[in-house]
């Protein structure tokens, strides 16, 4: 018999034994609830943690009713205890997510609110007024990006995104995103080199989505590479696939984070040292998009040395 997922433990046979396995922090609450049930008949339905005697705990839901004798004295307790550890874990993840998104939404919202407040007090100084309004606008743009990322994620996950599939030139898309990021790379004095295969590489996909995937990868490279760093983009053919990659000499990715890198909301342990605006959606979106086109994305990286992200996509027919 499995006792809450630990097959090697002898299940407790007496109440006293069972009682001693309840997490010490939860025990007083359960004692009180049971007492209330005995004294007032208030239904007993509680969630608590129960140990397996080896130091690990499962979360359980316990519903019980006292059987009483003719004088109304409780003589037995009958009920059912069910393992809710997985549900508890999912609830925790959901609540972490809500907290995180709340924080990421509130930051630009506070920016807009405060900049507009300052603007209202600055009506007599057009130059300053303009700068506050400009800042408010930039904050709304960040807000829109975040909401769009969340929406795209949800649509891609449910397969609900309307796609316009067509033949796309990887070189042209790449040039567009490099141009788009050039203000940033200029500011950080980074050099970007592009190596294109001699033959025209065309892949089959949705222009907007593929552009977003490549943009996410390149902007990560820019973001996590220090001032003066260098970024190399390469395109080539590998069998029946186009291979696109971006390599940087940035902060790299800790070994422990590699396996989870493309998971939703996952952020590597060393990114907070660089910035705190990220949502953990960028690489997840890249994976959803690339897989949608029948491709594959992966990463090679050494912490402190740099990263290389590679995308393989089916060539256009």
């Amino acid at each position, binding site marked *: 018999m499995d006792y809450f997922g630990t097959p090697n433990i002898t299940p407790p046979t007496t109440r006293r034994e069972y009682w001693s396995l309840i997490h010490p922090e939860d025990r007083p609450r359960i004692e009180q609830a049971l007492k209330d049930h005995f004294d007032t008949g208030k239904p007993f339905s509680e969630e608590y943690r129960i140990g397996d005697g080896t130091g690990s705990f499962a979360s359980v839901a316990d519903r019980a009713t006292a059987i009483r004798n003719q004088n109304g004295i409780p003589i037995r307790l009958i009920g059912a205890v069910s393992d809710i550890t997985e549900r508890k874990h999912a609830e925790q993840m959901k609540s972490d997510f809500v*907290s995180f998104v*709340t*924080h990421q939404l*509130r*930051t*630009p*919202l*506070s*920016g807009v*609110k*405060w*900049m507009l*407040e*300052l603007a209202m*007090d600055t009506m007599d100084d057009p130059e300053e007024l303009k700068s506050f309004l400009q*800042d408010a606008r*930039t*904050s709304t743009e960040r807000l829109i990006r975040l909401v769009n990322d969340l929406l795209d994620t949800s649509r891609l996950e449910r397969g609900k995104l309307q796609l316009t599939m067509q033949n796309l030139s990887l070189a042209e898309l790449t040039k567009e995103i490099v141009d788009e990021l050039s203000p940033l790379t200029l500011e950080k004095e980074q050099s970007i080199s592009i190596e294109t295969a001699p033959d025209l590489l065309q892949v089959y996909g949705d222009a907007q989505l593929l552009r977003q995937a490549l943009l996410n990868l390149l902007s990560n490279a820019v973001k996590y590479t220090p001032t003066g760093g260098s970024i190399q983009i390469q395109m080539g053919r590998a069998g029946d696939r186009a291979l696109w990659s971006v390599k940087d000499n940035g902060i790299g990715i800790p070994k422990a984070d590699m396996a989870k890198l493309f998971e939703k909301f996952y952020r590597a342990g060393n990114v*907070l*040292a*660089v*910035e*705190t*605006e990220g949502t953990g959606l960028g690489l997840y979106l890249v994976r959803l998009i690339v897989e949608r086109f029948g491709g594959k994305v992966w990463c090679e990286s050494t912490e402190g040395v740099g990263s290389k992200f590679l995308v393989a996509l089916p060539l256009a027919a």
Partner: protein
Amino acid sequence: MNEARILVIEDDKFLRKACEVGLKKRGFTVFTAIDGEEGLQQARANIPDLILLDLLMPKLSGLETLEALKKDEQTRGIPVVILSNSSIDADIQKAKALGAAGYLVKAALSLQQLGDRVISYLEKAGQTAGIGPS
């Protein structure tokens, strides 16, 4: 005029700017720092009358910064008010346990209200000499 000196430790450039301008308008002298590391340096160099401290920041987080401020004899006495957009209970509890004088949620306040709260925290800390309408 308020003559108190306030250090704002905030990584978001818009929020940092808004706090700086908003508090200067109220007459405070304002220093700013873009992360916990710079915040610690500023706190030691300027010994402000009050610190407004963000939590989620690069390099040194707000809680780590708070811990370091309270460990340092030079900066231990400066009241630190957390100014964050996180309303996670665990963060609030940790900040209080580490000795924060208060916890404010940015999105819940106007700059006007933030200035009011700063004044009342300063009063509470008993460092109000010279503060009040002139």
